[in-house]
């Protein structure tokens, strides 16, 4: 907020949100204080409750909804249809956003969530091109929000089981992708070896940029070849696409990185606020200014420009 964010999304310190990392997030009391701070700063507080409730244990997620409403969250970011039904029927006046975890990537899909649960905004998956975002924004019966910087999930979000396969824990059910409890790093003659569970994910030669040990950005050997199967270690940076994204009619730009530091958040938010000011002034967009913060010290515009799925 101090860096100029119009809204901040955050979560409780449990498995109800998709950034359930040790030492991170808020108790209900802390989140209530944060919401007061946000209101004083004329900023919005969005509470992410965007994991999928365990069968028979949905009370934890419903309590999180109750608490978020009680502390005055400006919006709840939800993914599970059962929890959406609970929130929409219990709190008919509460603003609801559809999390990227719901993977709503078509006008029909978004229409369903709007009709069924009065969704006011959808966070679009990071697998769409700018042209597709424009087409959806033109027809969707709610606001659209897109990621512009940070970690790049290349899978159908909310449905990716790679972390679960390697560790038994997933972002969808436990709120953690490649949890730190299952990560190991060690150096072998200057080469950094990263492991996730029982899998070696990558080896980084001395002096080469490192990355998180996620299976989707791991380097694999098959037959006679070795390389990145899905995506290289890289972060999303869509600053150069801001003119096109504004043209496409999106309502909000999202910066990923709730698990990163205050220094990261402040730097990235300031950078994008300055970029938006340049856009208003019809000046060229900056380039490469955030590369030191990116995974693998490398950035991409992802699917926004590329044609893969």
């Amino acid at each position, binding site marked *: 907020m101090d860096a100029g964010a119009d809204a901040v999304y955050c979560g409780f310190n449990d498995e109800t949100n998709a950034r359930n*990392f*040790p*030492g*991170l997030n808020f108790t209900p009391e802390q989140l209530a204080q944060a919401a007061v701070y946000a209101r004083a700063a004329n900023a919005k507080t969005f509470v992410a409750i965007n994991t999928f409730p365990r069968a028979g244990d949905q009370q934890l997620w419903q309590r999180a909804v109750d608490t978020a409403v009680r502390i005055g969250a400006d919006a709840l970011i939800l993914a599970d249809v059962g929890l959406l039904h609970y929130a929409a029927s219990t709190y008919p006046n509460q603003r609801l956003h559809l999390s990227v975890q719901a993977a709503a990537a078509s006008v029909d899909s978004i229409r369903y969530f709007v009709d069924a649960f009065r969704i006011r905004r959808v966070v679009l998956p990071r697998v769409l091109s700018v042209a597709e975002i424009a087409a959806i924004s033109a027809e969707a019966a709610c606001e659209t929000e897109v990621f512009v910087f940070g970690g790049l999930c290349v899978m159908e979000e909310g449905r990716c089981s790679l972390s679960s396969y390697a560790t038994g824990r997933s972002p969808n059910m436990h709120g953690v992708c490649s*949890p*730190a*409890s299952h*990560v*190991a*790093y*060690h*150096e072998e003659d200057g080469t*950094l070896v990263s492991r996730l569970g029982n899998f070696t994910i990558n080896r*980084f030669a*001395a*002096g*080469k*940029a*490192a*990355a998180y040990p996620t299976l989707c950005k791991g380097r694999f050997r098959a037959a006679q070849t070795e390389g990145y199967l899905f995506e290289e270690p890289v972060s999303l940076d869509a600053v150069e696409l801001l003119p096109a994204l504004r043209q496409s009619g999106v309502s909000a730009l999202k910066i990923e990185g709730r698990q*990163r*530091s*205050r*220094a*990261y958040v402040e*730097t990235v938010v300031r950078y994008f606020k300055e970029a938006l000011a340049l856009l208003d002034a019809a000046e060229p967009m900056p380039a490469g200014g955030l590369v*030191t*913060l*990116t*995974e*693998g*010290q490398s950035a991409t515009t992802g699917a926004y420009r590329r044609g893969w799925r």
Partner: protein
Amino acid sequence: MPSVPALVSIALRPLPLAPLQLLLTALLDGVVQQHPGIFERLGEHVGKRIGIDPTDLPFAFVLEPRPGASRIVAVGAILRGTVDARIAGPLAGLIGLANGTLDGDALFFSRDLTIEGDVEAIVALRNAMDDAGVDIVRDASASLGAFGPLLERVGRIAAIVAEKLVLDVRGRQWN
């Protein structure tokens, strides 16, 4: 990432660790007093032994955060198997990480920072300190009573001089 010049590091090598230990204890007391919420965020990682290894200095530290009984000890080196986790990097990077002015993940990506052992404990400690808003000079000064403000001024000046020295030496090396 600026590093302590090798000559300075060599000059520090024969010095006894006792005076450094006094400074470290004051620093830890200050941080713990000013930011008791750190322990709540550490959760199950309270009491873990974290090795903090400035790779450009001839000594290291072992931190044991525990409510009412936190310890930090200066050691000549961190021996394998004596700590739960080890974080290593240039002193400037470790201070920036502690103060929340640098991003730990970015330092890891650029290979300025090395992490070994219990990664979850390191992540919890990083998040707990980042939330607390630690300022090591201010917090250490706060634990020294009447001498605190004087030490804080000296500390700030020392930090500026040290940074300039580091940059000057590196500048000459690059030229």
